[in-house]
């Protein structure tokens, strides 16, 4: 038990645990204090000063977010001095911020707008301070005219991903948040995970907006536009339509996609099942033929880029399997023409992803052309709203076959540990030659950053590890390099919690929300009749009709990828995205 201390807030006495901040104490007392830079566990630097309060006896106003309470402390949260200071700081912040709210991609989650009601400013009286800057556009767009220098992105990239792409450069009014030397993001080791985007309180960091292009394609009579949505999308999109976190939205989502005009609605979960059978097969081969181990999962493009950039010596450990999105992309572009009797160049394939890195993945050389546009969950919600569709009032509909059917194993791909569990369900059966009914590999579940589990079934002994966030991944890789950890299989997802916490998800994503989204996906798995990827009848169909065996030459050509330390991104990126699209789509 923590010691309790006696404090007063606005004249009222409270007993509060020693060591908590004034901000926390006020929260417990039901008093809201506005903040702008503060983000628990990430940014606790006291930068903005919006949260200042008066403390009796103190010479200056105190920052509630970083000042700890003490016995006998008397705190005043709403004095004229406090109000004036907050207003002035807020006013200065706005003076240095290019406000274009109605046309800002941040929309409602914008925290500058959110705290306005707690400040009550009616006019910016001081001269506007901000300078015009050119936008840095790539997968993630940086707009310095909107950056308030709260440093959340800097802290996020450092503390969660351990990459330090963004730094504080320069000092005083001339300081800015940017990659070193203000390089464009595309020329840095940024993995485009988008974690900084979901934490940025403003429109300074946003994902590349592809909604317009997709809407255009939908209107083009010469195009056959196919859409597939990722495992984690169904667990979160409801939040953008007012549903509580953790509500599964599948049938209505399918209906909305059809209403938007997509000709076919498929499911990336199908791609996930396909990934599992190829990946389980690869794992078994690696074990049998004593090839490079441990094998690393390769379904997270941010993680793959991270290995290419920072651990090139470990590239051979990466599974050659493409990600579910990329596999499905290859399958659709190659086999849908025959199945539906449509010319290949008429097909436009759009995916809905919880992820910003997936926008980058489709530009990789051996994937390019298979998927035309990636939309984040936020972008899709925006499109649905633009089209005036009332999602919640729609009747449930089902995905199209054959690429809309999936197993429970695929359903949990969106949660950290899910890929591992799905792969184990298949690999263990294939390795032991037996069928199992208990399919829950509980030790690989959970939200701990690094989880290590041993599988001991019959003669089979496997040691595996699961990590989420690249900071945690680095820890595991270092242990593997130093021979402190001996495992056969490693799953890494770059985002906290896996794709349910992806950079393309609704804002905010809190720990509580993550837990709820995860629960939703585990429930979906539990309720599925088929819970192993290799039992998905349409996977069997695909191999029988087109691919032959698991790991066949044809499967390799379409479903496996190559990696390299110095990917030709410069070439790719130096062309504009529009040029690439033109090339690929022959528009």
């Amino acid at each position, binding site marked *: 038990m923590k010691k309790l201390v006696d404090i007063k807030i606005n004249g009222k006495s409270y007993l509060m645990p020693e060591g908590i901040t004034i901000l926390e104490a006020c929260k417990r007392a039901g008093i809201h204090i506005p903040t*702008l830079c503060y983000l628990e566990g990430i940014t606790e*630097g*006291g*930068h*903005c*000063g*919006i949260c*200042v309060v008066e403390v009796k006896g103190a010479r*200056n*106003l105190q*920052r509630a977010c*970083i000042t700890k309470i003490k016995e006998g402390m008397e705190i005043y949260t709403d004095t004229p*001095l406090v109000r*004036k*200071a907050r207003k*002035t*700081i807020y006013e*200065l*912040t706005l*003076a*240095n911020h290019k406000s274009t709210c109605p046309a800002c991609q941040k929309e409602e989650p914008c925290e500058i707008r959110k705290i306005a009601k707690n400040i009550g400013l009616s006019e910016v*009286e*001081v*001269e506007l*301070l901000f300078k015009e800057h050119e936008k840095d556009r790539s997968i993630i767009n940086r707009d310095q005219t909107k950056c*308030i*220098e709260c440093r959340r992105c800097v802290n996020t990239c450092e503390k969660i991903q351990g990459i330090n792409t963004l730094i*504080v450069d*320069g*000092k*005083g*009014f*001339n*300081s800015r948040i940017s990659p070193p030397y203000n390089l464009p993001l595309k020329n840095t080791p940024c993995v485009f995970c988008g974690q900084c985007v979901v934490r940025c309180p403003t429109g300074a960091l946003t994902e590349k907006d592809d909604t317009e292009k997709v809407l255009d394609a939908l209107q083009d009579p010469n195009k056959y536009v196919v859409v597939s949505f990722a495992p984690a999308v169904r667990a979160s999109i409801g939040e953008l339509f007012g549903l509580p976190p953790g509500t599964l939205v599948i049938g209505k989502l399918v209906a909305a996609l059809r209403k938007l005009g997509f000709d076919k609605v498929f499911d990336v979960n199908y791609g996930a099942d396909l990934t599992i059978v190829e990946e389980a097969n690869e794992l078994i081969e690696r074990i049998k033929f004593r090839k490079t181990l441990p094998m690393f999962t390769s379904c997270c493009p941010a993680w793959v880029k991270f290995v290419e950039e920072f651990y090139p010596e470990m590239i051979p450990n990466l599974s050659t399997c493409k990600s579910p999105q990329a596999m499905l992309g290859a399958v659709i572009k190659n086999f849908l023409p025959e199945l539906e009797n449509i010319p290949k160049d008429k097909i436009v394939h759009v995916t809905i992803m919880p992820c910003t890195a997936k926008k980058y993945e489709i530009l990789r050389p051996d994937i390019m052309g298979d998927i035309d546009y990636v939309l984040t969950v936020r972008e899709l919600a925006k499109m649905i709203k633009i089209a005036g569709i009332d999602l919640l009032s729609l009747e449930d509909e089902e995905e199209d076959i054959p690429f809309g059917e999936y197993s429970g194993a695929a359903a949990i791909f969106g949660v950290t540990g899910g890929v591992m569990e799905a792969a184990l369900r298949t690999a263990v059966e294939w390795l032991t030659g037996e069928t199992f009914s208990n399919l829950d590999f509980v030790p690989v579940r959970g939200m701990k950053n690094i989880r290590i589990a041993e599988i001991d079934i019959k003669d089979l002994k496997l040691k595996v590890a699961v990590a989420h966030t690249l900071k945690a991944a680095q820890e595991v890789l270092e242990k593997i390099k130093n021979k402190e950890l001996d495992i056969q299989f490693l799953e890494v997802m770059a985002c906290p919690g896996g794709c349910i916490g992806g950079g393309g998800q609704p804002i905010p994503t809190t720990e509580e929300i993550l837990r709820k989204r995860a629960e939703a996906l585990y429930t979906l798995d539990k309720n599925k009749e088929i819970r192993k990827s290799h039992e998905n009848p349409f996977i069997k169909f695909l191999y029988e009709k087109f691919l032959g065996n698991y790991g066949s030459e044809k499967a390799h050509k379409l479903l496996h990828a190559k990696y390299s330390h110095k990917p030709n991104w410069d070439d790719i990126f130096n062309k504009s995205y529009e040029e690439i699209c033109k090339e690929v789509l022959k528009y």
Partner: protein
Amino acid sequence: MIDFKVIGTPILLRNIKKIDPESIEAYIETGGYEALKKALKKSPDELLEEVKKSELRGRGGAGFPTGIKFEIAKNQKETPKFVVVNAEEGEPGTFKDRIILENDPHLVIEGAILAAYIIGANYGYIAIRPDYTLAIKRLEKAIQDAYKYGFLGDNILGSNFSFHLKIKRGAGAYICGEETALLEMIEGKRGEPRKKPPFPPQKGLYGKPTVVNNVETLANLPFIIYYGSEEFKKYGVEGSYGTKLFCMSGDVSWKGIIEIPFGVKLSEIISLAGGVKGGKLKAVILGGVSGSLVKYDEVDIEVDYHSLGRIQAGPGCGTIIVLNDKRDIVDVCENIMRFFKDESCGKCFPCRLGTEASYRIIKKIKEKKANLHDLFNLERICKTMKNASFCGLGQTAPNIILQSLQKFKDEWLSHIS
């Protein structure tokens, strides 16, 4: 070469221009390192008592009691402990640390060793601004010689006390003089202030107990330890003992350093520097541009903490910038705010944005394009900076502006259209 003058007997400038600063032998001949020899025969507790009794206060600006700072660090259980000599000297118009370091480097080294012995530190840094090249050169030699003579290193003079001292070249930014930013810089990070508490004596360099002291503060220690606090307190006045270096600049006939015992009148100091040049006295910027503004009719005041406190002023780091009546107060304020907007570290909003915004308003006022409303905004922004900035820089940056708005209100208003 910086010129100097003295009122009474000097403590700090006693060797200046009398001994060869590059010769440790010369320093020893004048009684150098005797305080250290004497100290090693006593316990750190006894010495701490002596420093506390001397009522020595920090000369870096804030005037914090040095003995208390030592005591906090001494009482910490964590080791290792550090002594950091703050030789960043970034305040415009300040060059007193430089004169000591260039002319009597061993005085500071001896002071640092004494501080280390008292708090139980085995490592120390002299953090110095990179453009003090002569001082750096002389310090390098002095440290080498001190090692040779066994004043630095393991088992100093045969005792079981060890202390190692290194020079750390600073980043040349004003904020790096702030003690916690200084520590960040030594750790190789971006020089930005830390949240206090914990204070450096509790958690300082690498999270370990650290005393950060100004060059001039430490230069007092050999005297206090050798002659005792009684002798030290014969200098100065109650609450402000010892002597203080003042850097004279601006509109005075003579520029340089004056060492005075506390309690001498400000007007007397100005007279000693040959009086005001180019006109009549308008005001004095005292204690640096982050310090206070003393109006011409206030200068007949004793320079000590107590007396100056009565007019919301203080000796600060010991800078006297004299302004004659040809100076335009708005112009002076514009210069000051230009300095701060460039030197703000950028960590916190009130200072990063407040310095820029108020600079622009002052400029507008100077150009006679402003109205009364702008003046209100200026005051409001300055007050917010003072109340809500993260560190001392932003909190003190508007000092002169706010004081001038009171003391030279009419002059500000005369610029308003």
